[in-house]
């Protein structure tokens, strides 16, 4: 039963990996621009993430190796280096965007410019990792992340028309402005299906010393954890759809997004928005930095753990330290977090197939997953996801140039 409490890992991963600066921005823009019509993209993204997260967990529990371990061991050093360098650049940009998200939330509340918050946020995140352990990080952020339920509360209070919401859950073609529609669809998927999510989750499984007994709880965690994030993201879209869409307001800045909580919740809505933004981006900061540190340590074969002192994994600890510090510089220099978010989502989409394709091989290799190989559903899902990821990778940059 205690294993089911490890759903906290799922919720944390979900809050940091699923609902973060990119997801909030794209969900709000989708709601503002197209009402409920892009709901199906959220559903699609959630389903993809659930499958991939479950597979990451199962791979780790059975093989006792993380996803990155398995990727180097099975595909070789060439594959590791070819995939890790673009991944590093993308993660660094995403990390800067997340730090920017927290900084923006603080700007909303205090009025002090976000550039000034960059280093305090960086130091705070770093301290959390340096002093804490994975349990603290997971449980702490999962708990704090409950404040993001404000989006759901707001959405409900706005009384969205149920039939329109449900209609939006089914795929539909855009009524007009096709380029923007598809660009938003691709952005949402890029924001939801992030590689660092899987690297982090699989590392968390190893740190938690999962084994074959965890297969069931892993499935539960993947479904419940990711669905929780999906519900939150959906709340964002619904609230934006109710507040902005009828008025034809396009979301251009984060300060506007905050308004969607103010209408249903009054003045506290502003603070709740800032809190939700801060916590989800904080969680994402930790997750991206850790995810990248895990990838380095596992790819090169170093010791890595957050569950003991940094002195026991010096290189691992220094990777996340340098990542956070250097990413904060971008924000301190005044790079616009929202623009950075949009840009890094498109780049994430481009690197996605490199992460999803190996699953096809690994989840069918008995050396890694033993008797817990993918059934036909799992394989159909992973092949489908890889095709989708490849399609998204191809159109992401052109769409951004055309319609973003």
């Amino acid at each position, binding site marked *: 039963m205690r294993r089911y409490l490890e759903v906290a890992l799922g919720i944390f991963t979900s809050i940091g990996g699923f609902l973060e600066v990119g997801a909030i921005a794209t969900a709000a823009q989708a709601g503002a621009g197209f009402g409920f019509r892009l709901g199906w993209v959220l559903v699609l993204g959630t389903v993809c993430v659930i499958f991939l997260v479950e597979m990451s967990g199962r791979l780790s529990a059975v093989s006792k190796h993380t996803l990155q371990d398995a990727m180097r*061991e099975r595909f070789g050093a060439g594959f590791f280096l070819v995939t890790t360098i673009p991944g590093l650049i993308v993660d660094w940009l995403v990390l800067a965007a997340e730090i920017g998200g927290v900084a923006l939330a603080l700007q909303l509340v205090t009025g002090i410019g976000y550039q000034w918050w960059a280093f305090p946020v960086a130091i705070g995140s770093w301290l959390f990792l*340096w002093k804490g352990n994975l349990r603290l990080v997971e449980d702490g952020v999962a708990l704090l992340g409950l404040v993001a339920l404000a989006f759901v509360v707001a959405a409900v209070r706005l009384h969205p028309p149920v039939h329109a919401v449900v209609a939006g859950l089914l795929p539909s073609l855009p009524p007009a402005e096709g380029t923007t529609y598809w660009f938003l669809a691709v952005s949402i998927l890029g924001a939801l299906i992030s590689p660092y999510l899987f690297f982090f989750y699989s590392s968390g499984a190893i740190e938690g010393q999962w084994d074959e007994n965890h297969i069931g709880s892993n499935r539960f965690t993947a479904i419940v954890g990711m669905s929780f994030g999906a519900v939150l993201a959906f709340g964002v879209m619904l609230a934006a759809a109710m507040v902005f869409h009828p008025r034809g307001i396009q979301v251009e800045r984060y300060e506007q997004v905050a308004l969607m909580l103010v209408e249903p919740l009054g003045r506290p809505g502003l603070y709740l928005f800032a809190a939700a933004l801060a916590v989800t981006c904080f969680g994402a900061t930790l997750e991206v930095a850790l995810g990248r540190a895990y990838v380095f340590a596992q*790819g090169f*074969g170093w010791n890595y753990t957050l569950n003991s*002192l*940094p*002195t026991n994994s*010096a290189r691992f600890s*220094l990777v996340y330290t340098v990542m956070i510090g250097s990413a904060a510089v971008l924000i301190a220099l005044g790079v616009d977090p929202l623009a950075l978010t949009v840009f890094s989502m498109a780049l994430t989409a481009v690197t996605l197939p490199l992460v999803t394709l190996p699953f096809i091989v690994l989840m069918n290799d008995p050396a890694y997953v033993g008797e817990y190989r993918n059934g036909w559903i799992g394989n159909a899902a992973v092949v489908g996801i890889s095709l989708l990821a490849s399609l998204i990778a191809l159109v992401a940059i052109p769409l951004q140039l055309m319609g973003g």
Partner: protein
Amino acid sequence: MNLTRDILDQQVVDRAGQRLGKVDGVILELRDGEPPRIAAIEVGPVTLARRIHPRLAAWVEWWLRRFGPRSDGTLRIPWSKVRAIGVDIRVDLVAEGTAARAWEEWLRDHVVRRIPGTPQ
């Protein structure tokens, strides 16, 4: 047993289960009239870099020898020390003090321990 599938790029762990690195290289000994035999496995960033390009390896080696512990981090483990080949490659060594750990230990002592507020 296949080289790429079972040995190369696999995780090496020491007697205590500490991670030493991935198998970046394998040394074969050529013999007259006899098939080549595995003499050693090698762990190290220079060995890894050489698989991309020898010039990259030279560059990496230059940097590693210039700073920090001034070690290129290459550890050659004789095949006789290999105890098990399975999910990891277990070797009969203690990781602490080996060339593979040179940078880890140097960074621990000269950077990590010096950061304020770090428990020792």
